[in-house]
């Protein structure tokens, strides 16, 4: 195609059109936030793996605490399907098929074809790449079976029977079987009144269950030739299906909830705890526990007689952690707030004055250990530690209006950015009053975030403004157009750095004019001071380093610690202890051995 470069007059419109299309594609690509749980895989080890639609969204937990963690090193590709073969996980993604090595240390790419469907049984696997027919996978090698009878509609569900027979099903394709040694797919049974099969499950006793779109649930017992419609299930859209090993218990996701049967599908009852919740994946683990994953990325587990929500995904993200001088901790995790009065004590859940899902929430602790909590919709509140009651934080906060970022600065002074005006405020500890911070005489700057860097440097920034504080100096201000990439940092020479789109600016110590410069690595971001005078700082490339300041004002790295989980990170230190919140929990650093201890608050 030569059109885009055929003539000069066309070049500019075509380029503009290209850019517009690219922008639209990028916008569309960036707009997706939901993390539906695509698949629940009870492993032969007794653990359960959970696959979400997010890139790298593979989680795993084992009993008895069922503490889900993101599987480290999982391919950073959008997942599609998950299976287990010979105690090894096989992950199908939009950009290829991966197998976890037997020592579970890394992933091997088996194929670069986008995976459409995947199923394994023992050493036998079947993979269907998008746009192609099913292929056998054995010992990492593919062998496309030369078979006839594939339907026009693609097969999207596969199960492999113990005898090697392969069952396939799909929307509009019905259920077909490829017997071992046969070269033709053949329809399974008769009487399947609806060929729009969304879910196919094979019980250990050979009973097939087919959940359809619009026709309900069908069952075909071994030896029978005709599908039986399970009319006791008062739902016609079965989007997910699970059958216990003995075939007696059946779970069916019906779009707006789950139905369960204890007699092999003859009679059904609604699961009240999951009423109205769209469930995408269901499973029974090896111990017969039932699991359900939802469109909203929530995970449920049947515990005794009732279904309970298992902590998973967003529930485990530590948004912020703040320490009290006495060693106490406050943790904002998921949509809950926890407190630990002192190291080793039990976690307590703190009731909050507003739901923590109402706006972007932040917290800070002042010099005397009082907790401040606010959100972009709610002004800062202060917790009375004696009564446990929440009150207004202090006078002087311009109302109405929430707070965008609460941070504890040097000497325990609390700072906050007004959510509406973008103005930086400081809580004066002597007057117990919020006062606007005078920033270089500039007014009307819209700030969004605030961070404390090594050496007591403070930076706050917004889309077009950057303000900074050097120890012993007043706040400075610079206006940058389109400061989208924000998050300024400090380098080992004490220079401040920030990015404006593709250009980089630096501010040398003692100067007040930013220079267009080339970036220098590493850049240190959020930092905390340790009792020995050193500082721990997070780097741009997600390391945690201990810094010692030289006499000339520069820094030198002494130790580096690999964070125990994926970002985003929340860092604090108290009484010589360092705490780091990650995507899936809270961890305490053992500075001697450089190891981490999981201290995530229990559910």
């Amino acid at each position, binding site marked *: *195609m030569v*059109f*885009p470069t055929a003539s000069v007059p066309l070049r500019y419109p*075509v380029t503009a*059109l*290209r850019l517009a*299309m*690219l922008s639209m*594609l*990028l916008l*569309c*690509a960036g707009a*997706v936030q939901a993390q*539906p749980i*695509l698949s629940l895989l009870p492993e032969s080890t007794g653990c359960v793996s959970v696959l979400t*639609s*997010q890139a790298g969204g593979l989680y795993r937990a084992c009993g008895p605490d069922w503490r889900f963690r993101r599987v480290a090193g999982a391919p950073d*590709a*959008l*997942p*599609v399907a998950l299976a287990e073969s010979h105690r090894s996980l096989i992950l199908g993604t*939009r*950009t290829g098929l991966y197998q976890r090595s037997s020592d579970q240390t890394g992933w091997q790419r088996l194929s670069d074809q*986008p995976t*459409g469907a995947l199923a394994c049984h023992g050493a036998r696997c079947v993979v269907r790449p*998008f*746009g192609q027919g099913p292929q056998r996978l054995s010992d990492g090698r593919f062998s496309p079976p030369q078979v006839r009878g594939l339907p*026009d*509609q*693609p097969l*999207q569900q596969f199960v492999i029977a113990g005898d090697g027979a392969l069952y396939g099903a*799909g*929307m*509009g*394709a019905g259920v077909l079987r490829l017997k071992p040694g046969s070269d033709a797919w053949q329809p399974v049974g008769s009487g399947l*009144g*609806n*060929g*729009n099969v*969304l879910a196919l499950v094979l019980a250990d006793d050979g009973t097939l269950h087919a959940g359809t*779109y*619009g*026709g*309900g649930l069908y069952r075909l017992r071994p030896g029978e030739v005709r599908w039986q*419609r399970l009319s006791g299930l008062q739902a016609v*859209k079965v*989007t997910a299906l699970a059958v216990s090993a003995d075939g007696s218990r059946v779970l069916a996701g019906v*779009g707006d909830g789950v139905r369960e049967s204890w007699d092999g599908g003859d009679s059904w009852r609604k699961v009240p705890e999951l009423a109205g919740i769209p469930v*995408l994946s269901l499973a029974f683990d090896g111990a017969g526990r039932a699991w359900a994953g939802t*469109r909203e990325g929530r995970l449920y587990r049947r515990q005794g007689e009732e279904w309970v929500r298992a902590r998973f995904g967003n529930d485990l993200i530590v948004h912020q952690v703040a320490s009290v001088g006495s060693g106490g901790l406050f943790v904002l995790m998921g949509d809950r707030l926890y407190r630990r009065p002192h190291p080793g004590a039990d976690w307590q859940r703190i009731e909050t004055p507003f739901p923590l899902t109402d706006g972007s929430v932040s917290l800070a602790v002042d010099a005397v250990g009082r907790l401040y909590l606010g959100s972009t919709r709610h002004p800062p509140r202060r917790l009375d530690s004696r009564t446990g009651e929440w009150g207004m934080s202090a006078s002087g906060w311009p109302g109405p209006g929430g707070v965008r970022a609460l941070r504890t600065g040097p000497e325990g002074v609390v700072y906050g950015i007004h959510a509406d005006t973008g103005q930086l405020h400081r809580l004066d500890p002597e007057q117990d009053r919020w006062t606007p911070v005078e920033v270089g005489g500039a007014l009307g700057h819209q700030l969004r975030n605030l961070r404390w860097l090594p050496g007591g440097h403070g930076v706050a920034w917004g889309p077009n403004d950057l303000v900074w504080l050097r120890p012993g100096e007043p706040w400075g201000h610079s206006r940058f157009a389109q400061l989208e990439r924000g998050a300024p940092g400090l380098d080992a020479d004490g220079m401040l750095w920030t990015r404006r789109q593709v250009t980089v600016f630096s501010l040398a110590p003692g100067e007040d004019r930013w220079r267009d410069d080339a970036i220098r690595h590493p850049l240190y971001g959020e930092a905390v001071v340790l009792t020995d005078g050193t500082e721990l700082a997070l780097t741009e490339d997600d390391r945690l380093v201990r810094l010692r300041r030289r006499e000339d004002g520069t820094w030198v790295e002494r130790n580096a610690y690999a964070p125990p989980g994926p970002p985003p990170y929340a860092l604090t230190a108290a009484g010589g202890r360092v705490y780091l919140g990650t995507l899936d929990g809270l961890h305490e650093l053992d500075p001697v051995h450089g190891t981490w201890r999981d201290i995530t608050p229990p559910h």
Partner: protein
Amino acid sequence: MLLVFRSLIVAMLLALSVTLWWYPAATLVMVEPVAWGQLHEQQYAPRQRASPFLSSAVIEQSRQSRPFMPMAEFIQNQVGGAMLEVEAGEWSRELTGFDGDRTWMAPDRVPVTDPPRGWVHLALRDGEALDFYRLQWVDPLQRLGDIPSAQAHPFRGFPLLWACVGIVLVVMLALPVRESPAQASNLARGMRAGLGLLFFFLPLTLVSLWLSQRSAPDAVYALIVIGGMLALTGLVTALIFGRQYAWLRRLMAGEGLLAHWQLAPEQWRDFVQRDMRRSRGEKLARLVMVAVMAVVVGLGFVLFAPDRGAGLVVAGVLTGMVVLLALIVLLMPLWTRRRLLQALPQVWLGLEGVCIGHQAHHWSGLGSRLESARLQRGKQGRPARIELTYSGLRGVSSGRGVYVYRDQQNVVVPVPPGKEAEAEGVIARLRAGRGK
């Protein structure tokens, strides 16, 4: 009058026929079967075809950044949460034999009463089975190329109507009408052609204007412009020729008539033959001039154009134009001769113009004038003839404006033997009239 009336009726009937033949249905429902499995597959399978605007790598990168959705979620996402489920019943019979990509139905034939703006996703239940369709209410004007013509143009389905129209047209055209010499003249024909043009394109333009209130395709707007211009052209033509036709009628009635001669058949045939040669000779001279210019310009393009291919195209177009002009130069005199031979061998000569058989020349219109008139006595026993030259203003449009020039026409008027003296007097009158 009957001839004019016939022209108007035929033009309007033709316009009505064209309108009805083409007139699109008000609304149709496009019904497409939905194969969700294949749609889901297309969403995630790598694309084979590249876009002309984005490189395939960029597209693939974007597609790979689209999270996977299970089938039920995909359907939910595609239908926007709403899928109408209806019992197959009567409607399923409407789809019997539907094996193409889509079918079109009248709105009252589909089981949805409230037409939406966009798509309606329909699940057609037949017992336990569900078939999926998507429906879209479409103005057929937008999709004329896609819709079977019988559905897009509902009036085509009435053979009786078309038979009636055909009969009326044949009757109207075959109706024997006795033409007077004035009605048979080129001026009357020009006036009738102008009226026909006006009454054919004016209704079409009005219908197009009315259709443009719907979401009409570009062709409708083009028809408004072109039809409007042609209707206007017809009006102007009818007015010009109508005025001249009125003059001719007055002339033939004796008003301003200087001479009225009846020619012998032999002299008439001889005159017609000579006039054809003369006319052809004049036209050939112009053709040669145009051909020489075309050759020079064409060769220039072939030899000097930076793009040799484009130069050859220009030369080819010029050659074609010369060939077309040559055909016209050769055939037009033959056509004129044929018409003149069918006409009454009479000459009406007046101060404002002359009519020789069916062929009238009028020189007192806007910008026209008689340039010269002289009597040419016949040699070797041939009859005398009057040679007239008149001119009219012509305009040529170029990129910079309109150039007006004077175009001269030579007319030879046969003089019957023995009428030379009368002819002398006529010339004197003409010259006197020209001098006024």
